């Protein structure tokens, strides 16, 4: 393997860490609610902007991630419980709900765009010195980003495997009606999913700009297709699946970037999502292809 390929794999692992944080959240949210929530992208943007503003006010470093997580929870709660749940109560179909989430995305994205004067802001974050590992180059910050992703994954897996809430989350993701019949408070469990996914989206947005060092109104929207691809490829509702799929997608897009340039790497990432959606019409298993009920 040439050194370019090895280096691309290194970049891919960093990308995958960022993708996986967002994808875990989307996977959890989509797995439980069955709403294809495109407005998830704006939560990333809002989290990133919160971090940028915090930095302007003198809050620097990893504290920004916590701020992003908080803003992500609030934004997701408003979008999910405030808007999507209201529309879902009108017995709208899956298509109408995706259009509503797209409209929310449009409104928030262009409101931010109008408010910030359509600019690209630069975010500063000390990247630290370069470290070499098996031919791959990582900065200290990149290693820390990988650490955040691994930490989020371990915490989430522990929650899902070891606690009662986690068990209920998995049950509702699998079969909401049966879970409700077993006495699981479905709506409270879905609320937990909204909060967790919101926090993860906020963290993903901040970590994304810690790596890219720029933020605009379109940051989250541009990044969204990769998250969706990873979440759906990894089986909606499965956190470990999202992480494995993120690794595959992160490395694949970086390899394409090494060969054909960044424009084509974006195309490759979007293309993976289209292929995933076409190949897995159920998103999860074939049984869930028929699942058209929304749990909000």
């Amino acid at each position, binding site marked *: 393997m040439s050194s370019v390929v090895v280096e691309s794999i290194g970049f891919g692992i960093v990308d995958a860490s960022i993708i996986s944080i967002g994808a875990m959240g989307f996977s959890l949210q989509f797995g439980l609610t069955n709403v*294809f929530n*495109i407005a998830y992208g704006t939560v990333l943007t809002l989290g990133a902007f919160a971090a940028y503003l915090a930095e302007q006010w003198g809050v620097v470093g990893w504290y920004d991630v916590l701020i992003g997580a908080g803003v992500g929870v609030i934004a997701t709660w408003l979008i999910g419980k405030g808007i999507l749940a209201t*529309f879902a109560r009108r017995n709208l179909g899956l298509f109408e709900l995706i*259009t509503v989430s797209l*409209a929310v995305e449009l409104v928030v994205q262009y409101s931010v765009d*109008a408010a910030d004067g*359509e600019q690209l802001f630069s975010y500063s974050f000390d990247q630290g010195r370069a470290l070499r590992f098996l031919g791959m180059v990582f900065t200290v910050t990149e290693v820390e980003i990988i650490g955040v992703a691994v930490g989020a994954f371990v915490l989430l897996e522990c929650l899902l495997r070891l606690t009662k809430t986690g068990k209920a989350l998995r049950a509702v993701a699998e079969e909401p009606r049966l879970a409700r019949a077993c006495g699981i408070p479905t709506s409270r469990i879905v609320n937990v999913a909204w909060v967790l996914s919101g926090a993860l989206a906020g963290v993903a947005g901040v970590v994304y700009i810690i790596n890219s060092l720029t933020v605009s109104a379109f940051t989250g929207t541009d990044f969204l297709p990769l998250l969706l691809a990873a979440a759906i490829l990894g089986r909606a509702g499965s956190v470990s699946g999202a992480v494995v799929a993120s690794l595959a997608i992160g490395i694949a897009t970086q390899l394409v970037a090494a060969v054909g340039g960044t*424009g084509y790497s974006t195309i490759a990432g979007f293309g993976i999502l*289209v292929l995933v959606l076409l190949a897995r019409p*159920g998103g999860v298993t074939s049984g869930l292809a028929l699942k058209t009920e929304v749990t909000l």
Partner: protein
Amino acid sequence: MSFSSLDFYLATVVVIFGVDVLSAWGLNLQYGYAGIPNFSFIVFQAAGAYTAAILTLGPMTATSGQTYVAGTHVPFPVALLAAVAAGAALSAVIGVFAMKRMRADYQAAILLILALILNQFIVTDTSLFNGTSGLANVSRPLGSLVNPSTTGWQWAYAALVWAICAVVLFAVQRLSRSSWGRALRAQRDHDAAAAALGCNVVALKMQVFVIGGAIAGLSGGLLVFYLQAFNTASWGYEETLAIFVSILIGGVANNWGVILGTFLVQIVFVEVPNLLPQFGYIGLVDALEWVVIGLLWMAAIALRPQGVIPERRVRAERFGLPALRRALPAATAAAAPGQQGAHEERLGATGGASRR
């Protein structure tokens, strides 16, 4: 504003209105009548526009300052037909995999992402259609009849656009009232029932996807000959959403309602702000327009999903039961003579089933 500039502006609005109505009819055929959530509709308009542009720009030269493929000089009508063909051909290619039976929200997401991919592809590969700078200096057609630099030419072109609109309206109305159109609505309302009655649901969707694509290509061709320029910013995915909102507000599956919706959204909301004095920085008005479009969308879905002028209920008597019996020989033959009347009544009702 002087008289001549108002005249110029009015002619432009009339042309843009015609082009927008055309594309809204194309999308209405796909979404309103067939239920296809075509979020990549604008791509097919772009295909038509680029095709018409490169076919009339002539071969690429070193001094033209733009890069594109397959530059030739063909007459205006040929270029317009090629634009139609380009829209239809691209639709056929995408339809092969996007028209498979799948969850409606997955189909919507696939088509939306395809619009992003294709736009990004044209941005990245500048050798095709000159990337983000786009194609310019497309010459105005019919120059031998009217001087292209006068407002007289603009009004002549507006008349041509609306003449084409009249033809397309006639065609889409005939199509939607035909047995093919009834089958389209039947599969939209209940695809399993339509399939059980012998409709090939996938083939129907494929056909309407290609026809809608052809109309999109036509609108793109007409647009580029008027604007004389076209670039990747002209066909962001948001443009499709604006057409969707026109349909949702005007009337889903109602071609006359779509004219009203297009007027309200594309002319009142998008064009009239250009007349108002500019405020804020450049681009603020555009950004706010998209905010309004998004809010309109949510309001339309929340308040009146069928639009201001809803779809007309189709009554079974208008087609006559003999026609239905001819269309469904197996079904009627299988029915026992005593039950036949009730059976036909039910069959007739499926044609008129309302959307919700």
